[in-house]
């Protein structure tokens, strides 16, 4: 056997440091990360990175900060298994490996000058936070902005401070609902689709961006189409099992598309007839 080092291997890791962490809920933790050699990840909202803990594994995680923040980026991770639980145990200053960013994000250029209807279910707020913060930081480039957010219970609300700020801003419309209220909850109760009829939009100039659990899509899309938003103005992001991020390992395939390269953000019109997508 002979051996050569592959400098341009697509599996090579970039070194990164955890700058800060913050517990958001029982299961979700927030990490601020910077690449070690001053490099920038230069992502688009909706793109993801592979987060690597050597000896444990690698997982795809959406970047949840605005691309306008250049010297670091944020992720929000739910502890569900091997890598995510181990990641939760890491402290400020720990080194981790990064690959990416990967995939196609939301088409920001195309969204500019239009109204936005952003719909997040649960952890779907993470990738959408990247879009939302970008939009808010370049607010005058966009028309009206609506943000609808839903989750199971109040204790699962992510980014509470920011949600609070959004709800106070006058240049955007923010609404939130929970499936099940608790004693302190004074807001809406019900699934996220109940918020849609109430939003006041001009369908022809509104683009929708949706991220949430798979069950949410069919219902939300039906409501949006009812509202008259054209199919090709709806964008959604899919979660699939991913291993390589390079369109090779096959894990993330949705019919002829590779979620890691052709997605995770897709235009609804392009995929509406794919039964494996929904």
């Amino acid at each position, binding site marked *: 056997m002979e051996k050569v080092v592959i400098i341009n291997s697509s599996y090579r890791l970039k070194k990164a440091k955890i700058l800060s962490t913050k517990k958001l809920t029982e299961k979700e933790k927030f990490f601020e990360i910077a690449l070690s050699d001053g490099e920038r990840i230069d992502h688009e909202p909706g793109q993801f990175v592979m987060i690597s803990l050597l000896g444990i594994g690698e997982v795809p995680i959406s970047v949840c900060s605005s691309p306008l923040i250049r010297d670091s980026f944020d992720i929000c991770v739910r502890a569900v298994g*091997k890598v995510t*639980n*181990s990641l939760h145990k890491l402290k400020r200053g720990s080194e981790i490996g990064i690959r990416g960013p990967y995939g196609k994000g939301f088409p920001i250029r195309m969204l500019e000058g239009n109204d936005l209807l952003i719909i997040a279910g649960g952890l779907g707020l993470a990738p959408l936070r990247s879009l939302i913060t970008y939009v808010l930081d370049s607010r005058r480039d966009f028309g009206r902005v609506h943000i609808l957010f839903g989750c199971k219970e109040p204790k699962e609300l992510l980014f509470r401070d920011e949600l609070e700020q959004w709800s106070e801003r006058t240049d955007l419309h923010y609404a939130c609902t929970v499936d099940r209220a608790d004693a302190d909850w004074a807001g809406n109760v019900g699934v996220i689709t109940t918020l849609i009829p109430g939003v006041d939009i001009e369908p022809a100039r509104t683009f929708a961006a949706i991220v949430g659990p798979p069950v949410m899509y069919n219902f939300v899309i039906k409501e949006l189409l009812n509202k008259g938003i054209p199919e090709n103005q709806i964008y959604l992001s899919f979660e699939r099992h991913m291993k390589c991020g390079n369109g090779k390992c096959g894990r993330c395939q949705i019919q002829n598309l590779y979620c890691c390269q052709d997605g995770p953000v897709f235009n609804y019109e392009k995929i509406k007839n794919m039964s494996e997508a929904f």
Partner: protein
Amino acid sequence: MKKPRVAFFDFACCEGCQLQVANMGEAVLDIIGLIDVVEWREVMSEKWNGKLDVAIVEGSITDPHAVERIKQIRKRSKIVVALGSCATIGGVNGMKNNYVLDEIRQYVYGNSYQFFPTEATKAVHQVVKVDYFVNGCPVYIPELVAVLKAVLHGIPYDVPDYPVCVECKLNENVCMYDRKVACLGPVTRAGCNSWCINNGNICYGCRGMVSNPNEKGAQDVIAKYNISMDLIVNKMNMYNKCREIG
């Protein structure tokens, strides 16, 4: 870092799996160096009644006394590892579930059977929570090492949820069905690197079934290959009887 306190316990079993551990050779020395073994009947006489980091449990739970004992072990252990088929799936001990319990007791203990309480054989996780499973009869050493590493590393070990056929094909064995011999590979969980088939034997299903086996399909295959159904049911029962208890 303090070395984790580890103890080995045996319930109803042949202790063959512990023997496997003792026979691990170099790997065992390396692992022993990383842990503090406080009780291990097979190799030492000391007993330990205090708190444990890791309890490695061999054998299945077959009587009320054992139920009580395993509950106690669980209570004082941070991590419980089930070692070998008897512990993970009930193993050969499960065969007694084929019979009416009293019959077994009579068979084993003769007329005074009523004085010897017994109950349906259970795998360890059917009685207490188990954190790690090392399947197999006996356990496959490379997998055991992988599990122990996961324990020490504090990460989960996922037992493969695909059949032995996968490993068997990767080893490029001639399929037993091509030799017209029944083999439980298609429904048995991998992880043993198709150990038995590599050595010319069939798979006996000692690692338990995959989570979503196509049992009907498997029966059709066996029928098609003219293999006696009884033979296969026997082979399957040999290790997997406890599965029905849930």
